[in-house]
């Protein structure tokens, strides 16, 4: 026995290790099952799983990678929040300072490329779920949860796009939010909106329509920046987090990764 493995055994037999991990080294069936069961994170998984379900070419690991990329975004995003102030005076220059002065200024790159990667990963995940017919009973509901997650993921990317407050950001959001102006009935340039009036006074106008609700103003300005910041950093991630929990829970309740009956 080498020094290292003796040291390893000594650590694993000590009280500290034992207080964290309540099972022995996962070397046999029982301790391996315990390793999964007694860990809150690993416990997302069942103890045993169908052979076909863990084949990499079946799931492409894409759901897992989408989740991992979401975690990367959370971690890098929280770190970015230390440096970034969502106001028109500071936003752009905070980002500029971040790339010029901050040690390990890779944060912003990781966050941005991670977001792109998450969009691609979630599309691929949807493609594989479709191609394996895994939305069929009993997994219909989880597919619907997935569709909502897809929409929220795109909205996360979209709201984040505005935050650097550069030309790219402002005009991409301007293009996108202009569409809200044309919402039927609710947008002031939308069909039928003119019909919503009392005694000739229009009720839907630029100052209260769907676009106004989105931007908190009639143009992409300071209010829109703050609104997108809060949506991006707090509201949407929270909802996504909850829905991912539901999604994972349902995978297990629906009988695990799908397979031929």
């Amino acid at each position, binding site marked *: 026995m080498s020094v290292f493995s003796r040291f390893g055994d000594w650590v694993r037999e000590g009280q500290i290790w034992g207080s964290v991990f309540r099972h022995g080294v996962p070397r046999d069936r029982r301790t391996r099952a315990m390793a999964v069961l007694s860990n809150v994170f690993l416990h997302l998984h069942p103890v045993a799983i169908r052979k076909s379900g863990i084949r990499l070419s079946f799931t492409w690991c894409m759901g897992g990678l989408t989740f991992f990329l979401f975690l990367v975004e959370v971690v890098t995003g929280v770190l970015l929040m230390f440096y970034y102030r969502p106001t028109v005076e500071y936003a752009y220059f905070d980002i500029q300072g971040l790339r010029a002065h901050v040690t390990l200024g890779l944060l912003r790159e990781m966050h941005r490329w991670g977001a792109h990667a998450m969009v691609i990963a979630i599309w691929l995940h949807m493609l594989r779920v479709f191609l394996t017919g895994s939305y069929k009973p009993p997994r219909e509901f989880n597919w619907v949860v997935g569709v909502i997650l897809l929409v929220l993921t795109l909205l996360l*990317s979209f709201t984040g796009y505005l935050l650097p407050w550069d030309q790219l950001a402002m005009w991409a959001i301007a293009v996108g939010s202009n569409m809200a102006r044309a919402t039927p009935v609710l947008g002031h340039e939308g069909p039928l909106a003119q019909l919503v009036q009392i005694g000739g006074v229009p009720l839907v106008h630029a100052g209260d329509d769907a676009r106004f609700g989105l931007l908190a103003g009639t143009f992409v300005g300071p209010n829109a920046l703050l609104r997108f910041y809060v949506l991006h950093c707090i509201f949407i991630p929270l909802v996504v987090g909850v829905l991912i929990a539901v999604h994972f829970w349902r995978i297990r309740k629906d009988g695990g990764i799908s397979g031929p009956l």
Partner: protein
Amino acid sequence: MMNSILATESLLAAGGVEAIKSGINWICQPHWFFILSCAGTGVFLAGYRTLTKPAVGIFVLVAFTIAYSLSAFDPDFLSIIIKPDNIPITLMFYLFGFFIWLGFRQSALNDQAMEEGKPLMEAGSDDKVLVWPDLVYTELIAMVLCTVFLMVWAVVLRAPLEQPADPSLAPNPAKAPWYFLGLQELLVYFDPWIAGVLLPGLVIVGLAAIPFIDKNPRGNGYYTFKERKFAVTMFMIGFVILWLVLIVFGTFLRGPNWNFFGPYEYWDAHRPVALLNINLSEIFWVQWLNQGIPTEGRWGLPHYVYRELPGIAVLIGYFFVLPGILRVTVFKKLADQMGFIRFALMVQLFLWMALIPIKMVLRWGWNFKYIVAITELFLNF
């Protein structure tokens, strides 16, 4: 003497390259590009068993990589693909190429196995393995590789930061983020209330409705194409052609003023475009009936409703009569399986999806704009 021969040769070569480039620019005109994408998808689905053979896959991979790399010598093409926010597009080509291949490869093998009465690739689904170590290690490796990949990407490429936002200085073209470029492309053919609100809403509703529409019990939990041809074909049309191909459109082929440019063409902001789009009402009243566009109502209808009656009739026919015809012809078998409500929902989603290529082709071919144009109420269709 020697010199002049060399010069002539390189000139010829350059001419050849230019000819190829302009050929590709020509092929990338919207209608050709679109028709070729559809044809490509069709050929792939029809010949998926042969076309997913590894040798074919490798050939396509190498050919695409060579063509893409050679294209990078063109300054206009290069300027598009090296935009940091366009890297995902290149990534998308490779990842979607690979995974679509992988999915259909496994479908082909499974379909073959079923015909020969052999077990599926996913068979033996009752055999269980322990999550620790078999799954957790796979996950760990996937996470590590993903992290490494992101880090390398982050070190090599800086995230873009342009000039500070300036509400008075609109860039030309102003593009949405790449993943929404398909929707932005729809704005050319539809008014914003359809392209930006209704169609995205229908995409979401349509996706969520899939499990409730598709009552085919086969193909649950394994790769197959043969057993669910209709469903998979529809999904591929919607996802690959109407979403991904339109993103490629928006990235490579749309330049200043949202005009079309070939991939190797200089984005000239001053290129004149003489386009006079025409509405159905003009075709009907002016070209067919040889009278002016009605300016007064009739039969108690406001003039704009009377004027647009032909278009309204077309829409009613498209959304309410056509489903009935489809019900008893091409979709007969499907409809019998589905029941009324499912079929009605499916057909409406199908018709909305079909409306996109229909309006695109009408625009490209005949400069056609609105079927119904009630501009008075912003109700243009």
